[in-house]
């Protein structure tokens, strides 16, 4: 396929967007962005009591969808693929079993699915959804940290400038914001539980920051 002019129309259609299964066989272990922090060891050896709990939800599938939210056909296609419609209300999220969708911007959603299903879902999108959109696998580029506990709000108040009061930040709300000197997608999943989507390259910095900001409350690492 070195020259457009000698490709068949079928070939052209098939290559409009390049979709690839990026996962190797199960015999090769993936290393999440916080692999080097050895959270499993800390979970075993570290304190079991504390005001802030942290768990990396690692090696999940992260798909970034960009499309026009007024396209009814595409909205229907999303629902066929994920079993749930896109959250169209700004700063909200929806869930369906293992799938969650975060509103990111007026034409952008982050879909998080089990890692092994990523390629399958990506392929289904390509089958089910026509027209102009983009779907990008960014699973290697970010990870999810679940932070929870009695003092999780205080820890986050030291880290993000947004208002985390339950009246302003109810369960299900999503905000992309600065996290210390990096960034995070913050989503509330419970009264005292949040998920942070953070970028791989900044993960170590954010891990250091969370340890520091949690010190006065005690940090419990969960495996």
């Amino acid at each position, binding site marked *: 396929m070195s020259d*457009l002019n000698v490709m068949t129309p079928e070939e052209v259609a098939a290559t409009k967007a390049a979709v690839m299964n990026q996962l190797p066989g199960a015999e090769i272990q993936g290393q999440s962005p916080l692999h080097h922090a050895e959270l499993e060891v800390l979970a075993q050896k570290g304190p079991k009591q504390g005001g802030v709990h942290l768990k990396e939800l690692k090696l999940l599938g992260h798909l970034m969808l960009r499309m026009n939210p007024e396209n009814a056909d595409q909205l229907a296609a999303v629902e066929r693929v994920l079993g749930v419609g896109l959250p169209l209300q700004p700063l909200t999220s929806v869930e369906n079993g293992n799938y969650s969708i975060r509103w990111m911007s007026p034409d952008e959603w982050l879909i998080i699915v089990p890692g092994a299903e990523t390629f399958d879902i990506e392929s289904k999108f390509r089958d089910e959804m026509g027209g102009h959109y983009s779907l990008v696998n960014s699973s290697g580029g970010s990870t999810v940290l679940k932070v929870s506990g009695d003092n999780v709000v205080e820890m986050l108040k030291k880290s993000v400038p947004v208002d985390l009061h339950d009246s302003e930040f109810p369960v299900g709300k999503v905000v992309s914001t600065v996290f210390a000197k990096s960034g995070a997608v913050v989503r509330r999943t419970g009264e005292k539980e949040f998920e942070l989507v953070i970028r791989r390259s900044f993960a170590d910095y954010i891990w250091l*920051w969370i340890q520091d900001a949690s010190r006065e409350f005690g940090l419990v690492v969960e495996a």
Partner: protein
Amino acid sequence: MTQKNRLQSGGRIDRSKSLTFTYNGKSYQGFQGDTLASAMLANGIDVIGRSFKYSRPRGIVAAGAEEPNAVMQLGATEATQVPNVRATQQELFNGLVSASTNGWPNVDTDLMGVVGKIGGKMMPPGFYYKTFMFPQSLWHTYEGVIRKAAGLGRSPLENDPDEYDTINQHCDVMIVGAGPAGLAAAQTAARAGARVIIADEQAEFGGSLLSSKELLDGKPATEWVNTVVEELAGYKDVMMLPRSTVNGYHDHNFLTIHQRCTDHIADKAPAGQVRQRMHRVRAKWVVLATGAHERPLVFSNNDVPGCMVAGAVSTYINRYGVVPGNDLVLMTTNDYGYQTALDWDDAGRKVVAIVDTRANPGGARVEAARKRGLNVITGSAVIEVQGSKRVSGVSVAPISADGKQVTGSVTKLSADTVASSGGWSPVIHLSCHTGSRPVWNDEIVGFLPGPTVQKQLTAGGINGKYDTAAALAEGLEAGQKAVSEIGLAASEVALPAAESVEEGAPMSLFHIPHLKSTSAAPKQFVDYQNDVTAAGIELACREGYESIEHVKRYTAMGFGTDQGKLGNINGMAIAANVLNQTIPDTGTTIFRPNYTPITFGAIAGRNCGELFDPERYTAMHKWHVEHGAKFEDVGQWKRPWYFPKAGESMQDALNRECKATRESVGILDASTLGKIDIQGKDAREFLGRVYTNAWAKLAVGKCRYGLMCGEDGMVFDDGVTSCLGENHFLMTTTSGGAARVLEWLELYHQTEWPEMEVYFNTVTDHWATMTISGPNSRKLLAELTDCDLANENFGFMDWKQTTVAGVPARVFRISFTGELSYEINVQANYGLHVWEKLFEHGEKYNLTPYGTESMHVLRAEKGFIIAGQDTDGSVHPYDLGMGWAVSQNKPFSFIGKRGMAREDCVRENRKQLVGLKTTDPKAVIPEGAQGVFDPKAPIPMPMVGHVTSSYWSENLGHSVAMGFVKGGLDRMGEKVYYPLADGTVIEAEICSPIFLDPKGERQNV
């Protein structure tokens, strides 16, 4: 030592808890509840420092944030030194170590005191302005001496052992000040269900009520304070911040609060606690209940220790059980000042006289004083004080009704304390921070907050409502207003009944006349901290500085760390008088953040040490660390710089890395390259518009190098973009340019070409990228993939989807070294796995990791530019000799096309990028060196361009360099010279920048 000025009972101190502290090396006792200032006064310490310019002994004059003199150096160890702490705001703790900041060599026998007498004359107002600013080159010489003499404290020489942090807060109502007005506002807002933050700079809430004997509902006022504080503590959404100064009030109701969490406990914060915390608050509504500061009067020798602000004397007596002297003379322009004499009398010490500047005072407090038989002298003033390290007596004389002249003979009275009250100045500082200009009010003889665009309310003393009943009522009103603006239902609050005191009218008087003219009379201080006198202000006005802003700068009035809290209004009044205009006509200077000095620690917060700035790591970072990489910062990325082996110098390592790559195979972690996924049917057209070259015919499976320019036609980024699918591209950018390029694409898409169907997403972090480069790279890769790597099937500038070491990968055959190269991209979670597999198989090929420095050398040997190193925003593609990367024939224009066609961009003799071959092959021209055509030309020599890249090339056995030379592309073979700082000159020949393999055969094998 006994606390000779301590009362046996009374005040809010705990006499059962004795605390030891030191001041200038001597040990003293105080009590729990003392401030450093109250403890010093209790111990009879008169002199706490020397003045800035005249080196006069100075004592404590106030009891709060407005204190100009008692600015101390604290710290028991070198590491815990803190300068600029007001003794009046520092709570006493056991083991506190304090020292005066000004007093050289010590406050009691000050060498500067001798100099000061002369030095004063040598330093008239405007001294800085006139002398030190010219010649500017000598400022550094003066500065050291001035600083030492001025004594502004010093910073520690060791690292601060304490931690400081920052926290973000949000609320409905932010209440600044927890006096009667603030507490009433807080109670009102809290009961309505609002989210409230109330902050006060003092340790306890209560404000003025803590220092008075007033009754509320017939009980001590502090009982009401306790009730309200208890109630507030019960609300989940109310945050009470004592020891917290609201230091800045910024746009959109953003406030910064400096909380001193442990400054009152010990020299160093207890383990696990931060010393200070900065709160960054966003408030829907702000209530300023900041109260007022009492103004002292300006009279001769009013700086002699023992001269104090009247209200401060009452505070020391009532709150701390300290009477700061024995024999008091009170001078006042108003009724309220009488309270100090009454308090002094209650404490059982002698009131020598109450000197009232008014001819016929007659309010309730005046009557009370008369009833007690206190000596009230009316229509008179204390025109001069006697004494040097402590007041010994005063001169009292009758004055005219307008207060401008002495009208009779002087009576001398013996006294050790002079309290003065010139009325009150509302604390409008925070209101000024938002740009609001204060407004003069004749009735209260002071400035009130001006109109504001903020959602801001004011209550109590800041509005000139000094009476407790009025302050409470205003607090309630502000609370209800804020609540209703937020949309909450009004709450029920019953205010306590306050006693009402009938007061006579105050006199508007600031500057007490003397028998002599102001310039001839003994010094009358306006701004203690900067030694600004009434005479100095008059001189400034006479010299033509009529604007109050100019007077301020000329005299340095209000320039100190106290920002002129006590003196500014007096100074303006004096200037107005000299200029023969009113105070509102004269106007006022305004205040800026911060309200009080704040530590660097609190500003820095946790953004220090390892958290100073994020360090970004690639998926292979751990391997680099384990293999001894030296790192280079590229943006926030930590990139391996080079990998030295034991005993190798940097140059040794580079030589080895470069040779291994050219002779066998090297590997680079290129994960930091910016990567942008581009999808949509218009993606190709979009690329054609943002890149200078053509993209219409790039086929699926192919890669192309592109240059990106700004509208001005100047190169700002470059990289390879690959066609993944007909509507799908992967763009790479420079490591530092990734975010900027993505924003650039979004900017143009969203603002200029929204009709184009294209989406951009960053995938920089998603892919781990490793480049294997060198003649053996194909052999190495072949061991780990089934992909057909034969040149005819996988040629230069092709990419393939395949599997490498069992991991799905995209492999790009692109080269930044000029060697046969493969750039392997795998999902980053598998990056380290593939990297390690390459090394398992690479040992037999001497697979050598190299870092950014060898990358630079290898690309420079090939004349490849680095955007940002060989470009600086002032060069277009033709300047770089890269006209081949510009397509002038695209149907739609491209960004930069018009810019690079501007007259200046197409003129002759522009600086152009060329290769530079040194005559001495061993000479490496320093990067940044400026070239000249004639090294014998007289200085300043005409400079013709600088060197942008320059390295030793072990592969070529000579140095390689690139640089700009005027008209360089037409000067091939000519000489250019680089005179260096050491006097030597490096000669170089202008040549093609491609030093190695000009035909590009090595990468095409």
